[in-house]
């Protein structure tokens, strides 16, 4: 439906404006080789979790711009082919949207992506787009979301109003893949609290403003939770069904930028309908309204030791009011890391760090991301992720054998 109306709109625009349309194509083609250091935790007689994954990724971006950029249409499809996990072989429309604007307003209609928030170790406030979990276990990749977004840009801040028709289900690894729980999550069996299921229309509102050294955001979301609850049916014990509840969520994010310090804070309060809380109680999987927060700093040393490097030190604390460790990865955890930008012609950069669960001394993870440019058009990445957990009751323990090293080459055009 949205695609159709978008095409109609574009056709109308083309007809009306009758001016030169500027077209530009860009994007990248990527190749990845990922090697797991341990064998799958959930191997059985019939299922072997991949020890090695090759991937080919395509993400072209086509942009049509009319009337000197007053109208822009963007089409950005995405596809991955994975050698081992059919569920990870997937495609998405990251963007198919029309943008127009005036002096103090902006309108986006179609499939698009927005980002809210300031912290690095997790993104609590950022709720509009669903996580493409099968694409990246760190939750940094997002699926395209149908939306109409109107922004009003005023002296007292920017108001973004969202109508979000249509819901995207979270993607999960298949049984041959990694980063999955012991039970297979059946994406096809997704259940919804709302009768309209994935056609439920969600709403969101955000105010953001810069006040001197502070960048502040307040947000509200009402609709289908992007984070599924996992429903366990005693009749089908080997299967978990994603259950998408209706939620109301308030968020706040603040960054203070003071000299070489960036102080960052994000917090949310999420509530469910009482009827749902009762229902899940009866299934023995209690859910509750909760609050969560992430706060910390990033301090950067510029040009230390006679180099031209920037060395950043990051520390963030993650809090969640739910105490049930089975439900939450980041309930009382500390993240520490460092980001080094070498400021060379190849734009080499390294980011590394670790997260320690303060409630479980045996639960931590270590990661490293290195990137540099080869020639003028190829970006080379090395990614290392080492999740660890000796505590089987901790949710992180399901990924404890999914340690990997990955080499990636992306060719940009």
């Amino acid at each position, binding site marked *: 439906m949205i695609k159709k109306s978008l095409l109609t709109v574009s056709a109308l625009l083309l007809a009306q404006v009758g001016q030169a349309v500027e077209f530009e194509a*860009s994007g*990248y083609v990527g190749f990845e080789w990922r090697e797991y250091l341990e064998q799958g935790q959930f191997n059985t007689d019939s299922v072997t979790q991949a020890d090695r994954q090759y991937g080919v990724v395509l993400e072209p971006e086509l*942009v049509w*711009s009319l009337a000197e*950029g007053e109208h*822009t249409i963007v089409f950005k499809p995405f596809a991955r082919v994975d050698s081992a996990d059919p569920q990870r072989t997937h495609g998405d429309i990251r963007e198919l949207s029309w*943008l127009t*604007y005036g*002096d*103090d307003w*902006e309108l986006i209609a179609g499939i698009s*992506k*927005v*980002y809210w928030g*300031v912290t690095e170790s997790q993104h609590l406030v950022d709720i509009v787009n669903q996580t493409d979990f099968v694409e990246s276990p760190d939750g*940094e990749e997002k699926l395209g979301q149908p939306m109409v977004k109107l*922004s009003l*840009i005023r002296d007292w801040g*920017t108001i973004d109003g969202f109508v979000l028709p249509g819901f995207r289900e979270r993607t999960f690894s298949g049984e041959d893949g990694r980063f999955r729980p012991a039970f297979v999550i059946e994406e096809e069996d997704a259940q919804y609290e709302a009768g309209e299921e994935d056609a439920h229309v969600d709403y969101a509102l955000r105010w*953001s403003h*810069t006040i001197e050294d502070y*960048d502040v955001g307040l947000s509200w979301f009402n609709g289908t939770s992007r984070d599924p609850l996992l429903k366990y049916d005693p009749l089908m014990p080997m299967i978990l069904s994603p259950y998408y509840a209706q939620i109301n969520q308030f968020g706040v994010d603040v*960054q203070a*930028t003071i*000299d*070489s*310090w*960036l102080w960052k804070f994000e917090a949310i309060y999420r509530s469910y309908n009482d009827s749902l809380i009762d229902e899940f109680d009866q299934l023995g999987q209690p859910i509750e309204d909760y609050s969560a927060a992430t706060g910390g700093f990033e301090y*950067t040393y*510029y*040009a230390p030791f006679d180099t*031209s490097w*920037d060395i950043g030190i990051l520390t963030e604390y993650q809090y969640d009011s739910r105490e049930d460790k089975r439900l939450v990865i980041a309930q009382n955890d500390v993240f520490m890391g460092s980001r080094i930008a070498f*400021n*060379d*012609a*190849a*734009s080499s950069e390294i980011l590394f760090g670790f997260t320690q669960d303060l409630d479980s001394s045996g639960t931590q993870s270590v990661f490293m991301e290195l990137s540099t*440019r080869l020639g*003028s*058009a190829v*970006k080379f990445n090395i990614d290392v992720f080492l999740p660890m957990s000796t505590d089987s009751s901790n949710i992180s323990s399901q990924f404890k054998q999914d340690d990997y090293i990955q080499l990636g080459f*992306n060719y*940009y*055009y």
Partner: protein
Amino acid sequence: MNTFTKIASSIATTVALLAGVSAQAEFSIAGLSPAEQGLAIAKERKARDLGWEDSVSTVTMTLRNSQGEESLREMRMKSLEVSDDGDKGLTIFDTPKDVKGTAFLNFSHVDKSDDQWLYLPALKRVKRISSRNKSGPFMGSEFAYEDLSSFEIEKYTFKFLAEEKINGIDCYKVEQIPTDKNSGYTSQIAWLDKEHFRGQKVDFYDRKKSLLKTLTFSDYKLYLNKYWRPMQMDMINHQTKKSTELKTATLEFKTGLKDSDFNKATLKRAR
């Protein structure tokens, strides 16, 4: 110069003199102390550059290492003149291709540190960044951020040193000492031509007071009959033997940009 233009020019000069606006004819640094002379030259340089309102340009940067290997950066820049404060700027990167669409918003200030935001198109994320990093390399080039920021009187203390010729052009040689403790330089020696107060050459001295870089300006073009802009700037690092050539491919003034073209929303939709 033909007779007609000679007459026209002399009439114009006379009219200007009568109106008291011809800075060129009035400018004199006689009888001042070297510090006063340096300041007077800087003020004159700034005064001659007021009123440009806004500009849009396309710029190419070629980075060369000591082996002569090249790396290219292309960007588009929008600038807005702000009276009583530093200028506003929006830079959009086109190459390298992996940073295409990355955009940088800068509100420079005269009396406090600049406000800066970076837009990362892959994440759709706008990040407020620290502007403390004045001495850092811009896009891996030999230009530091502070070399590319707008010229403001408040950023330096000045001292007139001598009159010298650079490439056959009569110049004022002025020492500029940065007032910001975060500057990467202990001093800069700048040569400005006496006729138009345009930068011809700058020597940069690092924190150890040794010569670090030399910047030369060439291919000056006159815009709106008032504003001189170099179409080429060459920065040579004497210590690393690396160099960066910055060429302006297109430049336009008074394009009608407004304050509302410089905010986080325009940063996000910049293409």
